[in-house]
């Protein structure tokens, strides 16, 4: 059994210690907000926060997150009221939406460490792939979220 804390709730999971957090979330716990896009830490679709810092869950073994506070997209808010979610709606950011859970988790982590990021900081911190090409609106929405 491995004890993990997700969105403030304790879970005891009976899984291999080297099972990536992504698959524990999706296949063991049925939390589908965190997405699979590449499996090799390249795309960011699986981004979650560990103690508030962005991490790619596909490359994070579950054994490494015991004792840390894990936040997933479901933990931002359940009603869309988180400032990042509000900015995402205001700017109509998502197209297919598949990358956006990870994108928003990366952005929220950035705003925690840098509440009013410059474009250069955004470029350095947000390395998630959006195949639909929402980057222009992601940038606008980050600046909006930073103001709220």
């Amino acid at each position, binding site marked *: 059994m491995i004890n993990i804390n997700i969105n403030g709730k304790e879970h005891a999971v009976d899984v*291999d210690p080297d*099972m*990536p957090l992504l*698959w524990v979330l*999706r*296949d*063991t716990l*049925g939390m*589908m*907000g*965190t*997405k*699979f*896009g*590449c*499996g*090799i830490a*390249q*795309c960011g*679709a699986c981004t979650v926060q560990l103690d508030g810092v962005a991490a790619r869950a596909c490359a994070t073994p579950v054994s490494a997150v015991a004792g840390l506070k894990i936040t*997933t*997209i*479901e933990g*931002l*808010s*359940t*009603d*869309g009221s988180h400032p990042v*979610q509000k900015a*995402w*709606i205001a700017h*109509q*950011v*998502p*197209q*297919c*939406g*598949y*990358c*956006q*859970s990870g994108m*928003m988790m990366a952005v929220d982590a950035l705003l925690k460490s840098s509440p009013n990021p410059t474009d250069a900081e*955004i*470029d*350095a911190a*947000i*390395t*998630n*792939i*959006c*195949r*639909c*090409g*929402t*980057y*222009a*609106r*992601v*940038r606008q929405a980050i600046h909006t979220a930073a103001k709220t």
Partner: protein
Amino acid sequence: MNNLPNLDPNHTSGLDRRSFLVSSAAAGGGFMLGFHIPAGQAATATDAEVNAWIVINADDSVLIRVAHSEMGQGSMTALAMLVAEELDCDWSKVRTEFVDPRLNITRNKVYGGMATVGSRAVRTSHEYLRKAGASARQMLVSAAAQRWNVPAGECQAAASVITHAASNRKLGYGAVAQAAAKLSPPKDVALKDPSSWKIAGKSTMRLDIAEKVMGKPIYAIDVALPDMLHAAIAQSPVFGGKLKSYDEAAIKNRKGVHSVVPLANAVAVVGESYWHAQRALKAMPIAWDDGANGKVTSTEIAAFLTGGLNDSGDVPVARNDGDVKAALAGAAKVIEAEYRVPFLSHAAMEPMNCTVRFTEGGLEVWAPTQNAEAILSAAARASGIEPTKIVVHLTYSGGGFGRRGGAAPGDYVDQAVLIAKAVGRPVKMVWSREEDIQHDFYRPISSIKFAAGLDAEGNPVAWNTRVAGQSILSTANPAGIKNNMDAGFLICFTDNPYDVKNIKVDYAMRNTHVPVGYWRSVNHSQNGYFRECFFDEIARAAGQDPYEYRRKLLKNAPKQLAVLDAVAKKARWGEPLPPGHFHGIAQVDGYGSYVAAVAEISMNADGSPRVHRVTTAVDCGYVVNPDSVETQLQGAVVWALSAALYGEITIKNGRVEQGNFDNYRMLLMAQMPEVDVVQIPSGGFWGGIGEPGAPPVGPAVANAMLAATGIPVRSLPIIKRSTTSV
């Protein structure tokens, strides 16, 4: 695990299963496309299906059915807006549901074609959708008029309320919907002039976005069923190869492994989680029979295409205006060039996946798709179960870009059906990103040999185009190839809008063993690049500004000219730029729309470009949701830049060399230019919007590089010209 299917029923699962299955009376109906509900399929007691597209409940809420897929392009909202516009309903009360493809069978195709390809969702269905809305509005008004016993002509409808002004009476749509549903639809209805639209034509919040920011399980890959197993699959790395053998014993006793399922050209490992299945699959020794193509390389394919460029034999001609040979011979100056583009992969963010559950006598399928009907027929084909017993659960698709419709939409469905059948339990099969990139239907490889002749004043008098490349029909419909011709492959040349008297276009078809398909912006993607870049070479040889030269030669193409002028104005073409910055321009029409782009770049020390700004101008005729048009144009810039700067699929030993985003590179935030989108909708026609934004962007960048360096960019990707990153 052991969750119930957790897809949101409001938006994803399509119709409830009520009575529609039982009736096949519709088959002989011959009903007008769009709104007649076949006899015997009347509304239920709880809600009123006013017609096939529209259900209005007693609480005034409006359910609008959408027959096309939503993969990010925004057409779900746009299509509902068109219905709502003519229905004159309260937009805040609208929700949507995807049409169950079985219903399209039992209702005799009342929903028209469901394939969501070719930027066609709005442009092919706007008329019957608007008629469905107008017809329903008329029925609601008639029902209210009957209740009041007044002439319908004295009643008015607006925002879901019918008013009889003379007697100051009002009724909500919900109050008369059931009565309206019993009336016969009007024979013909007049449609509003778009200038009077209140819902359509205005920027409108998309209906799918609220769910998409909350991580809701809204994609096929998110389905979780009781007792469900997970499958990972390895397909023959060489296209056309077969499974020879595999060593099941090597992994059978691993924890979390359930079974191994061989298929003709693939093998799947089934396990407790996707990770267990995928890890075991990677560890299992597999031998493949590569077939005839196990040695093919990109170099060989390139030489094969070069042979096509130089083929002096009998090559089919698609366009032959005037006498190109004579005009070239008499020209004051002749410009020649060869251009090339590679194969490209779609790489939609949601990997290919399919979940299958066999039920008593039937089957349920969840899969991301651009064509629900193709999923239905693939599932029927693979299972042998008749289509009316198969439920296709429709979900949002995490991208599509042509991969999930068109050439072979059913490959992943067939596999999941066979795997679920073999294991006797529900199965979710997910392709790894490597499988996705290595088993695509690629944007075809192509090459061009151009020759253009100028007269003494620098006017073009001849333009010869020889195309050598792989026809999409070679995969999608080989029987459709007649006389070695695929006219679609020559788009942008056969309809070259520039005013040149002598034009010849011919095609040396060169098909490889690599499967090809429809890739967002399809043949316009490579041909737009070829044509617009060579155009700049001609302008340069003529000593003329590429914008002004285009203007001169587009004098008979007013719509192309209008977007060209609009983009030049917005980008301030010809005005001074920051030191080291250069502009490039291009225009390509396609999918019924007109688009032009200007790119502003500077050159990095390593010879690669830094793209600072892309300005695009679009005329798609009528605009349904302007904000959505803007997002599609913004997205198309990213799509086109990823392809032009980095995109390349290469072949070695018959197989694809790239496998994931580490070697099939995508544009990121750090490379994202500023984007300006100018919309100049001229009305009078309905153009597509998902694809046409992409083709002019790559050539605008390449032309800016020509302006900066004097060296034309004659092959893609651009990154190959430099040694370090852009």
